[in-house]
């Protein structure tokens, strides 16, 4: 409990810092990747032991998309093979879903970590040679490919590569290698955006 109060007091401190002496807040460097990986591995292991399932992210977006389409065109959503699988028999909202709550936790956990390290600040992630507008266009195109690819592969980096990778699923490992292959194949053409 004391630990929690300690963390919360730090968060509060950071908030006031950001409001008043924003430019003086020095962002802490990121943690050692091997320690982070070990911690992430334990979170994943906890999910296996407690729930019998791993982590995910894209599935939560699918639930939101389904609810959106169902609100606008319910008949269309129910007749579509993909949306209907998320709607089920209609007794439970697709938003009352494990992955939706997990992703809400991801947003909160990321914010908490960023706050504690003084890394929460607005901005656009891009290389110096590219305009914000261009970056936004690529972010949207990349996101679209990502959403489509994740659905085709039955999961994204979290659900397939990380979770399926740790469980040694054949499809997950093939997927993971394909992700790296696809990324490296296109990286050269995208270098202006990042470097």
């Amino acid at each position, binding site marked *: 409990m004391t630990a929690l109060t300690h963390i919360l007091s730090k968060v509060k401190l950071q908030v006031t810092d950001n409001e008043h002496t924003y430019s003086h807040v020095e962002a802490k460097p990121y*943690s050692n990747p091997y320690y982070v990986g070990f911690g*992430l591995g*334990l979170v994943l*292991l906890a999910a*296996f*032991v407690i*729930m*019998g*399932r*791993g*982590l995910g*992210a894209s599935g939560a977006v*699918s639930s*939101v*998309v389904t609810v959106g389409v169902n609100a606008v065109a319910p008949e269309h959503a129910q007749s579509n*093979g993909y949306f209907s699988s998320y709607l089920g028999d209609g007794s439970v909202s697709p938003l009352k879903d*494990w992955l*939706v709550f997990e992703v*809400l*936790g*991801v*947003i*909160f*956990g*990321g*914010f*908490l970590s*960023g706050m504690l*390290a003084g890394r*929460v600040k607005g*901005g*656009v992630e*891009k*290389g110096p040679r590219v305009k914000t507008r261009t970056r936004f266009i*690529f*972010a949207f195109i990349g*996101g679209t*490919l*990502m*959403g*489509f*690819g994740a*659905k*085709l*592969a*039955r999961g*994204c*980096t979290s659900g397939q590569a990380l979770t*399926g990778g*740790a469980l*040694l699923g*054949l*499809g997950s490992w*093939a997927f993971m290698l*394909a*992700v790296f292959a696809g*990324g490296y194949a296109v990286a050269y053409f*995208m270098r202006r*955006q*990042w470097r």
Partner: protein
Amino acid sequence: MNAPFYKFDLFGFDVSLIIAFAIGIGFGFALERGGFGSARILAAQFYFTNMRVLKVMFTAIVTAMIGVFYLSYIGYLDLSLVFISDTYIIPQVVGGLILGMGFIIGGYCPGTSFVAFSTGKKDAIVFILGVTFGIFIFAELFPFIEDFYYSTNMGRVTLPDYFGLSYGMVVFLVVLMALGAFAAAEWGERVMAKKGESK
């Protein structure tokens, strides 16, 4: 066998949602600590200048893999009750290629985009809108790609099954592979750092 707890009815669906939120916090916290809320760091993986993605990913995979192996070996975790998605090899490889391209073009994956969003990155919001649109397109096209989506189904198949090796042997080989990858990553970063200085 005591675990997975949920599958042995130690708690109900509503409680599982609270656990989902708690596990999500750990997941998001770790991703942010690792620098995964920054598209430039994620993209650097594909230019060999910063290999954090590989290091974090493979350390996490190895940690969870050894944990699952050990807990099932001592009879604590019933692995048959842990969800492993079925293998549909061709759609998964094609999906992976598309997703990998989307990764370097967009700069995030779905999980990391939520972390970037929570720490204030505007491009992450645009990316999330893109993911939403991509999923919408997929669902709308689903009737036309349904056959492909369900093709090359191999069922629940793991690397030990496929290669005819023991579970422990595959775990050992993956650990070896990860150690090799870590050594290569550390070496590659040093080479790229030198290259950067001489420019």
